[in-house]
């Protein structure tokens, strides 16, 4: 037998992650994808009534609405799923005393935590992938439909060739582009960060309910943090530079609550088909890794002193 290493081992993390994925799959969590799929497909047929008449939406607007609803659903489902599954896993292991038998094998506690989180992230990724494929497929057909309708209409009215091409390009920009994928990526990364937050809370909380409630709260505060901070400090110090006290409090808040501002900015841009800087996407990735890393290390500190 190979002697098990007593510090962090990627292989062991993978074993625990794999078992977590199996657990979540056998808990039939992927069933929640069914209503999402129904919603995405249903949206397909939603426009028929709207298109005719004076109230008709512009084709880009309609595509944007489709994207907004889908991306919003994806964000809501992955984040909630990240919180609930993480909150169920570790307290569940403690209550079941499954943890005794795992931790008395040569398994460092960091490996256990990292494995659990990785398992949740893998499942999140699969769910996101499925929803992304659905989004891209439905949006593709929708865009094709709009392109066809608009071209027909423009040709009938007698628009010049160049303007028709420009109109088509504008509609196509609202279709399934790489930009849209950045939006999906930002929601996925946000869900990963919120899973790490839930992991940290579940290491010291004594109940699943507390973990879920607190994580949801942090998720909401994180999402509106920039707004909240602006409201809190900029209003008070109208026109002046924020005082050092405000700065400190602001920094503290952004340490305790992850700042999802960049995540929101990128997904908004993706939905509006505005350009996103690659450097911003890189920054988003970096920020997510840093957040997840910090929360895992904090969890490890709390968890390593925990007794069962």
């Amino acid at each position, binding site marked *: 037998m190979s002697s098990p290493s007593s510090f962090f081992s990627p292989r062991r993390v993978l074993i625990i992650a794999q078992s977590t994925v199996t657990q979540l799959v056998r808990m039939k969590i992927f069933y929640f994808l069914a209503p999402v799929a129904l919603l995405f497909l249903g949206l397909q047929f939603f426009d028929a009534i709207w298109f005719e008449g004076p109230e008709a939406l512009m084709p880009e607007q309609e595509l944007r609405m489709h994207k907004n609803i889908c991306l919003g659903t994806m964000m809501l489902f992955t984040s909630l799923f990240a919180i609930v599954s993480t909150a169920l896993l570790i307290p569940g292991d403690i209550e079941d005393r499954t943890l005794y038998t795992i931790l008395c094998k040569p*398994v460092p506690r960091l490996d256990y935590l990292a494995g659990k989180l990785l398992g949740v992230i893998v499942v999140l990724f699969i769910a996101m992938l499925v929803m992304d494929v659905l989004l891209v497929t439905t949006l593709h057909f929708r865009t094709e439909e709009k392109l066809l309708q608009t071209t027909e209409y423009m040709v009938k009215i007698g628009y010049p060739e160049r303007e028709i091409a420009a109109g088509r390009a504008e509609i196509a920009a609202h279709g399934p582009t790489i930009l849209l994928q950045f939006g999906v990526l930002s929601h996925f990364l946000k869900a990963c960060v919120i899973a790490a937050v839930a992991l940290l809370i579940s290491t010291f909380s004594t109940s699943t309910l507390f973990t879920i409630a607190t994580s949801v709260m942090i998720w909401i505060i994180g999402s509106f943090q920039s707004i909240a901070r602006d409201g809190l400090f900029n209003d008070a110090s109208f026109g002046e530079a924020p005082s050092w006290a405000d700065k400190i409090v602001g920094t503290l808040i952004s340490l305790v609550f992850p700042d999802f501002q960049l995540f929101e900015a990128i997904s908004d841009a993706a939905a509006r088909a505005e350009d996103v800087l690659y450097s911003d996407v890189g920054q988003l990735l970096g920020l997510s890794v840093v957040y997840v890393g910090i929360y895992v290390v904090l969890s490890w500190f709390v968890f390593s002193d925990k007794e069962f």
Partner: protein
Amino acid sequence: MSEVAAVRVKNLVKDFRGPFRGKKVHAVRDVSLKIAPGEVYGLIGPNGSGKSTTMKAVLGLVAPTSGSCAIFGKNSTKVDSRGEVGFLPENPYFYKHLTAAETVRFYGRLCGMRGRVLRDRIEEMLELVGLQEARDRRLKGFSKGMLQRIGLAQALVQDPRLVVLDEPTAGVDPKGSREIRDLILTLKERGITVFLCSHLLEQVQEICDRVGIIHGGVLVNEGRLDDLISLEDKTELILENASSVLMEQIRELVEVTHGVNLVSEGQARTTLESLFLRETQGASSQEGRRQRSGKSRKRIIR
């Protein structure tokens, strides 16, 4: 002792603090014990006396308030001390969504086993604990005794040098409990150290080399089992088919001998455990026959 002890507990104290700085619970107060390699050590004591807590401290699941524990010389608070130990917790519980075979596989992999070795080991373990039939059933439907068995399989999967068993026979039927006893004896033959605690004193008596009695977190007595339970000034005599005339003669003989007292006399009894076994196992086994032929046994303790 030149050899390094399999388990060494040194002045272990463990206090649990109640919630919100409530009253402290002194679970273990200054327990020291040493288990030599190859020994079977039994810890007995009433409920809440600190047996499980001592075992958890040995496995590093709780941190000692003071004192220390070590397994084969490695401090229990370190992960590497757990390489050569298998633990069966009390009322074990595993992932409900896994099958018996998957459960053993999971724990085997956590111990760094893989490939052919692991596959063979899984079958070996399932056979050892008598769960081959249930190998592909999910643990969700397992009975308490079956969970206990899978717990044993899991504890033994990496062939550890030390096995810590917290009430290994709790919830197991008498036949299974005898099988577990035999299993422990097999482990002992193979030189594996066993540290167990149990409320079944007959079993502890049958299998343990040394016993520690813990009460209120204090180790009140400890020693070799033979030394602890032999009553040096008493002798037991069991007779088969003794006539009443012979019995009378013996009684008279005892009476005239100076300094000897007849303490008790009566029909020899089988234990409840073996009675149950006889009734539930059918008459085929040797054990059963032996027991039934002993109907007219008489027992005298002088």
